[in-house]
């Protein structure tokens, strides 16, 4: 068998393997914008990854502890993106630092301005009906908050968050007691496009056109200055680049008193979110050290 025949057979094997949903591998080149050691996660601003992702900034898991230790915000890196389970899981491997020049200009690590137990500030929001709402409107209910923009095309990002919230909403609607003691809040950071009518249309799609669901799940936006205050309060980062918005994924749970009970910014499941929301409605549980 010639070298080319072997190469051909190998290529065919690779193609067939690809058809069986084997993990796929893509080359990434980019710059590390943030590092979350606790979550083993790097936020990377990367070039186009043909076949996987357009150029953008997004968080990636890193399974190699040594790589997490070595890489610092600002570093230029190359890595392989491993995409498994039809793209639902992905992580970086073979991370290599190609330049450390950017370290001196790197931004500090993302931190939540509000600590566990802190009271949420009174920041005005406008909901899908054009009505002004505030976090204190939900006093007496546990509240699960997330942040999206309706034009997000990445199924693992905003559509996933909204789909998970929709499932939680549907489950809670089956138990009147839990439904009445909880609330969902989706906040858009794209006020330019996500006006109340757009948010209403988006919300209805996730509520199966049942508008009465808005009494339990608000879709809101804020003016840019207020949105920045909200982002600062909950550790959300977002910025527009290449005609789309790069952003972190953040979920926040509030106690019925309006205090921060818990944050999620990486691993979570719908069941975990729903369980925490129900539990919070019964009795405040702080996941972290509450402030006195």
């Amino acid at each position: 068998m010639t070298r080319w025949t072997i190469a051909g057979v190998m290529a065919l094997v690779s193609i067939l393997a690809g058809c069986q949903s084997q993990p796929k591998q893509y080359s990434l080149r980019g710059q590390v914008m943030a590092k979350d050691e606790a979550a083993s996660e790097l936020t990377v601003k990367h070039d186009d990854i043909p076949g996987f992702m357009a150029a953008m900034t997004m968080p990636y898991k890193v399974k190699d502890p040594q790589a997490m230790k070595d890489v610092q915000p600002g570093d230029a890196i190359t890595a392989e993106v491993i995409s498994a389970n039809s793209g639902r899981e992905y992580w970086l491997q073979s991370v290599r630092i190609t330049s450390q020049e950017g370290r001196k200009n790197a931004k500090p690590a993302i931190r939540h301005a509000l600590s566990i137990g802190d009271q949420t500030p009174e920041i005005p929001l406008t909901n899908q009906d054009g009505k002004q709402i505030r976090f204190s409107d939900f006093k007496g209910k546990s509240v699960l908050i997330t942040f999206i923009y309706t034009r997000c095309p990445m199924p693992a990002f905003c559509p996933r968050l909204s789909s998970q919230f929709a499932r939680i909403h549907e489950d809670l609607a089956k138990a009147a007691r839990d439904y009445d003691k909880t609330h969902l809040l989706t906040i858009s950071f794209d006020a330019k496009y996500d006006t109340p009518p757009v948010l209403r249309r988006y919300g209805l799609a996730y509520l199966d056109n049942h508008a009465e669901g808005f009494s339990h799940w608000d879709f809101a936006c804020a003016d840019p200055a207020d949105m920045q205050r909200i982002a600062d309060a909950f550790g959300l980062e977002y910025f527009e680049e290449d005609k789309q918005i790069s952003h972190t994924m953040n979920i926040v749970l509030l106690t019925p008193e309006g205090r921060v009970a818990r944050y999620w910014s990486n691993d979570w499941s719908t069941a975990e979110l729903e369980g925490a929301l129900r539990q919070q409605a019964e009795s405040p549980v702080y996941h972290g050290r509450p402030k006195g």
Partner: protein
Amino acid sequence: MNGPWRSAAIACCLVAGCGLDGCDSRQHGEELFELHCADCHEMSNPDLKKQPPKLEGLFQAKGLPSGAPATDEQVRKTIIEGLGTMPAFQGRLSQGDVDDLIRYLHTLK
């Protein structure tokens, strides 16, 4: 490109079923499809509330999955404005991008 090379290139494109611009445009459409559409329409995403429809044969069907007529204009409207849980691509794809994308969608049988 001139002389025999240009003729050869045109011949290759004609064999492939499109003109010089058409080849580029369809390839661009395919790239846009892979970047913006395939993740939802070609992959199974159990996390999503609604599974987006496959787009093979989109223009051969009597109507779009929404029930609307399968016309370029209707597909263009859906891409730009979004529909249901499908996000709008307004502001992110140029008119030329949408043209190329639609051209590519026509080739999906």
